[in-house]
Structure formats: structure tokens, C-alpha cells
């Protein structure tokens, strides 16, 4: 990951030494020691191009770089998103790793976030053009290419689909390299379904077997009601030649992983995206430490074989 700040992004020594102690307007000071190789602790400036409402509490932020190269990322990685003066939160990237606009320029950086705290509120309420800070990308990838030649089972619910979306798009970009592709998706209510139209397209045009369920249905709802993990038992895939990618709350992932292993999917082929408190994203702050792991650098995507023992002890 290299970042070349735009021409005006280099501050001379006078700018660095000015009494206010700030770099001049265009951005990152070379003298401060991070212009050439991106300093992971310093946010790069992105401008909000659009905030798209997805559900009543979930929004997708489309960001374009102000004065740096667009970042490249691998499906499953996250960034630290910074609302100036408010704070910073780790958010998985939900866009297409190969995404381009119709003119061939890189697609905006996408993050789908739930409006649940001070930082996320500031982010989703920001007007287009507002600058936000981006650090990263950090963490491990779903590495779906490992599953070439196998069946793929994506198990997720609610906003958990957002971190999986880049992996699904990676698969769809080379759809014929894979066997069956299943997407088992659960949401609290039919109104909370994320990327509903896109999932229908995947089902209709990309040979994805999409199965949905909701926890609570209004009167007259015709779809399935129940937990997403209950779909695993009857889903049509060959367990011994499948990879599974699971993203959701820890209890849901535990239930999904045991349903998958019960059908015979090897634990080493079940990948989960773990969530822990994170402040730095680079393994230094200690917040996401889980026994021998730092989730931000060793994860967030981890094999079930590795994390299963860590998911059975309460409050570990």
C-alpha cells in the first residue's frame, strides 16, 4: 500500500515550523515523516461523495480520495474511519475490490455502517463533500480464491453481509472457477434486509443460491421465519468439498460453525470475521487481543479451527 500525496501535499520546513504547528492547507507534511510511506497512524483525507440509505438504521458511505491514490484492499479488510473532532471507528470495507467507474477510474471506497454511536452518527449525517479520515486497510482477507473448485457457502445476517460483499463480488468476477455458491442470509425483519435488490440480481444472473430468513415477520409474510443457522442443515452443497464464510454476531457464528461442522465441512475451511474493540488497527493498542491473537492484524478473518477454542469461554 503506497500513498503518494498530491503535488501540494508536501509542506516545506517553514510550514512545519509555523507557530500554529500545522501543516499548510493541502495536507500531509513530509517533514512530519510520513509522506513517502503511508504512516498507519495518520488518516488520509477522503471526501464523502454520497451517503446512501440502505435500511432504517444502515447507510453506505461512498468516499473518494482528496489528495492520495485510491487505496487497494482485499475482501474482508477494514479501515479506521475518522469523523473529524468526533472520533474513529473500525469499519469493514463493503465495496468491490476490483470496482471501477464507467470511465475506468477507481470506484469510490464503500463502507456500510449502522448508525449506532457518536462517530457513526456524525459519518452518516455528514453532507456530501465533507472530508473524513481513512486509515488502513488493515487485517486479513476472506481469501476466497482458496475455494476455487469448491462449493461456497456464505452465512450471514443483517449488516454482516457488508464485510462479505467484497468476497462475493470477487467470486462473481470469476464465477466459473467455483462450484455452487450459496448465500444464506438472515435479518431481524423483512425491512432490515441489506442489499436486497443486489441479492436478487446475484440469484437471477450470477447463479447464486440465495436463501433468506427473518427472525420476526409481519402478518402475511410469505418468506421463511427462523434463524439463519437453521438453513444450513438443508442447504444444497457438498460439505466435504465446500468452504464456508460466516459473518455475524459471535453467538450466530458459533451456531453456524457448529451446524457446518455437523454437516461435515472441515473446521479449517470455515472462515469467520471476528469483532473486538479496536483503537489502532495495527496490533499496538492491545484492545483486540484474544489469547495469542490480535484480531486487527491476525484477523478479522480467521479459521474456525483456530478460534473455536476461544469462542467457547465466556468473556474471554
Amino acid at each position, binding site marked *: 500500500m503506497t500513498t503518494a500525496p498530491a503535488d501540494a501535499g508536501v509542506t516545506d520546513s517553514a510550514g512545519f515550523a509555523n507557530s500554529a*504547528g500545522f501543516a499548510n492547507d493541502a495536507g500531509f507534511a513530509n517533514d512530519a515523516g510520513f509522506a513517502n510511506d503511508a504512516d498507519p497512524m495518520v488518516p488520509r483525507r477522503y471526501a464523502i461523495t454520497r451517503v446512501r440509505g440502505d435500511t432504517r438504521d444502515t447507510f453506505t458511505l461512498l468516499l473518494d480520495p482528496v489528495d492520495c491514490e485510491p487505496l487497494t484492499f482485499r475482501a474482508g479488510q477494514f479501515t479506521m474511519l475518522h469523523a473529524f473532532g468526533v472520533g474513529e471507528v473500525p469499519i469493514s470495507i463493503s465495496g468491490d475490490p476490483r470496482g471501477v467507474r464507467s470511465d475506468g477510474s477507481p470506484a469510490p471506497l464503500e463502507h456500510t455502517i449502522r448508525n449506532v454511536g457518536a462517530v457513526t452518527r456524525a459519518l452518516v449525517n455528514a453532507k456530501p463533500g465533507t472530508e473524513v479520515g481513512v486509515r488502513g486497510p488493515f487485517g486479513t482477507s476472506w481469501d476466497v480464491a482458496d475455494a476455487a473448485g469448491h462449493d461456497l457457502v456464505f452465512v450471514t445476517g443483517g449488516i454482516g453481509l457488508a464485510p462479505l460483499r467484497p468476497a462475493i463480488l470477487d467470486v462473481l468476477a470469476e464465477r466459473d472457477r467455483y462450484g455452487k455458491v450459496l448465500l444464506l442470509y438472515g435479518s431481524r425483519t423483512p425491512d432490515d434486509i441489506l442489499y436486497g435488490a443486489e441479492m436478487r440480481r446475484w440469484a437471477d444472473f450470477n447463479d447464486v443460491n440465495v436463501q433468506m430468513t427473518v427472525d420476526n415477520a409481519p402478518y402475511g409474510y410469505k418468506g421463511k421465519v427462523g434463524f439463519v443457522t437453521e438453513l444450513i442443515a438443508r442447504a444444497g452443497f457438498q460439505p466435504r468439498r465446500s468452504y464456508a464464510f460466516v459473518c455475524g454476531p459471535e453467538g450466530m457464528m458459533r451456531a453456524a460453525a457448529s451446524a457446518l461442522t455437523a454437516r461435515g465441512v472441515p473446521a479449517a475451511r470455515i472462515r469467520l470475521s471476528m469483532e473486538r474493540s479496536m483503537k489502532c488497527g495495527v496490533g*499496538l493498542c492491545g484492545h483486540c487481543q484474544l489469547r495469542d491473537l490480535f484480531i486487527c492484524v491476525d484477523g478479522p478473518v480467521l479459521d474456525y479451527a483456530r478460534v473455536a477454542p476461544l469462542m467457547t469461554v465466556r468473556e474471554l
Partner: protein
Amino acid sequence: MTDIRILDPSDLGTLIAELQARGFRVVGPTRRGDAIVTGEIRSVSDLPRGIGDTQEPAAYRLTERGDGAFFGFAAPAQSTKPVFFPAEEVVWRGRRDHERGGHFTVERDTADAVPVALLGVRSCDLRAVQIHDQVLSHRHYKDAHYTARRDGTVVIAVACGEPAATCFCASMGTGPRPAVADPQTREPAYDLLLTEVIDETDHHFVVEVGTETGRELADAIQARKGTGKDQARAIEITDAAANRQTRHIDRKSVHDVMRLSAESPHWEAVASRCLACTNCTMVCPTCFCTTISDVSDLAGENAERHRVWDSCFSSEFSYVHGGPTRESTKARYRQWITHKLSSWEDQFGMLGCVGCGRCITWCPAGIDITEEAAALGRMSGLVSTQNAALT
């Protein structure tokens, strides 16, 4: 063959002046109020001469020694941790320009990188610095400020002759006499090692030279030659200090004991006494957890990001949307001691405890890491009752 020199007490001032003349900021033990802390040493008078200490669970008192010893105390209240890793520092400063549509600029703060001379650093704390080097400086992502501050450090270590009742470095293999080399990097651990020798007629320091820089320093202050006999006397002093230590952790078994104890009922017993006050993590020389504090002015134009020491004992530490991962005190105590005595080894190749005993001294409830480790060892069945009785 080690280069042995002898320093008289009057030479200490010369050594400090020599380090200052070479551009070093000299940092060492100094008295502040009723405690010995790590601070700036401007002259020899800043060293806590003639002062000793007594340390017990939840107790720390300074004493008058009456023998004029310069290093006649055990672990200072605070280690050298803040020298390279301050409790709070600015990561970057930013400014937003409202007239230009919320355009903001960010400038990385740079660490003041004046090279430090650690004077009188004890074996336990020196080992803690080596551990921090691995954690903060020798991984893929480095703490830039720590790395800058550690650059060019000169180490004038002190072999500890006065362990407190809370010390257990001997059992951790980290003292009281420091290893010649950092076990991870194989770099020399110190430039000079001083052992303070006081008897009825004489007060001097046996100096063991560890590096070429150390030799230059010794030459510059014209430290006279010593002999192997002097070194033997120094080793006698630290051997005696090791033998006087009463606490210990069985470092061979403790990694597995902690791993097996994840669901132990003993955590409830500790939690009933633990106040989750975070003292142990603040005085621990290896604890490195930090949080981010973003502060801004009222207009929202200027903002700063601060990196602040944090503690796994606070409920906010593990907070994610929906609540903390570790809600109970027992889970937080388990996290802390298990990281120190077990997962640290999986992550970094050594235990995260150096046996300085500060967490015992500064725990207001007197919770003793050695007792808790021993209790868990007995309950896990990995350590026999007979062995445990020795602790």
C-alpha cells in the same frame, strides 16, 4: 574476559556530566515526595542517596539507610516505561477550515528524539525495556515515537543488591543481575553494569563493561581497572539478593497453568477482592495497552489525537457496540494475568512479567500475582502441592 573497572561514589557525578556532555538526557531513580520514581538526573544530588524502601502487598515506605548507598532500594514506584512510552502523547494535530467546506489537514507529531542514558536501571526494568522493544518496535507495525525515543539509548544498569519483599525476578530469570545480552536480539543488554559495594571501610562500584561505548565512557571518566575478584564480589552480592527473595512464580509451568485455568472457579475469588482500579497495569513495566482520545476545541476547528495508556481492567476497554466483551471483574483479571503469564509467550516468545513486584506493592487490595499463579497451579493439578508449598 570482562573489562572490570572500579568507580568511587565521587565518580558518579563525573559519569553524569560525561553523559550530558555527550548529548544524553540522563534518566534514573530520584526521590519525589515519599516515593522513588524514574526522572531526570541533572546531577548526582538527584539520586536518592541513603534512601531505602520497604515494599509489601499494598504497602510502600521509604526508609533512611544510614550508609549513603545510591541504589539501596528495590523497584522504584514507576519503571522506565514512561521514558520511552509516555502515559499520554499527541499522535497528530489537525485543523479544519470551515470556509473551505470542512477541508482538514493533519500533521503528525514528532517525538523529541534526544538520546537517553538510563542511569541505574534495574535488571527487571531493563528486561521490560527489551520486551517493549519486541512489542513496540520489532513487529510489522511499529510505534514510531517509541522507536525514535529508543534510538541510541545508553544503558548504565545497576545489579540489584536490595530486593524488596515483593520482588521475584530471580524466579522469572530476569534478575537481580541482568543478562549480558538481550535474549531476543542478542544485542548487549547494557553499556555498563554497576554493582554497589558497601562495607565498613569502603563504598565503591564494581563496573562491568558491556560495549565499546561503555568502554569509552569508562575511559573518559578514568575509571580505574578492577579485577576478577571485584567481579566475583559483585556476583556474590546479586546471588545473595536472589536468595533473599521470598516470592516466586514457577515459570516452567505457568504458561500451561493459565491456559488450563480459563474456566477456573478461582477467578471469582480474586474478583471478590479486585477493585478493577487499574493500578497494577499503570505500574507494570511491560503493560502497553493504549487508547485513543480525540479532543477538539468548541468550534470544532482544531483537533488532536492523543495516545493514552489504557487498562484491560476498565469496562470500556473491551467495549464494542452492544456492551463490553469482558463485563465482569473476574474476566478482566483473568485477561490481565493470563496475558502476562501465558498468551504473551505465544505472541512474543517470552513471558510478559519481569518479577518487579510492583503490581503487588501498588494493589490497594494487596492481590499478589505470585499467590494467584500458585493457587491456579495447585488447582490445575500441573503444579504439585509440594512444589507450591515452596512459593
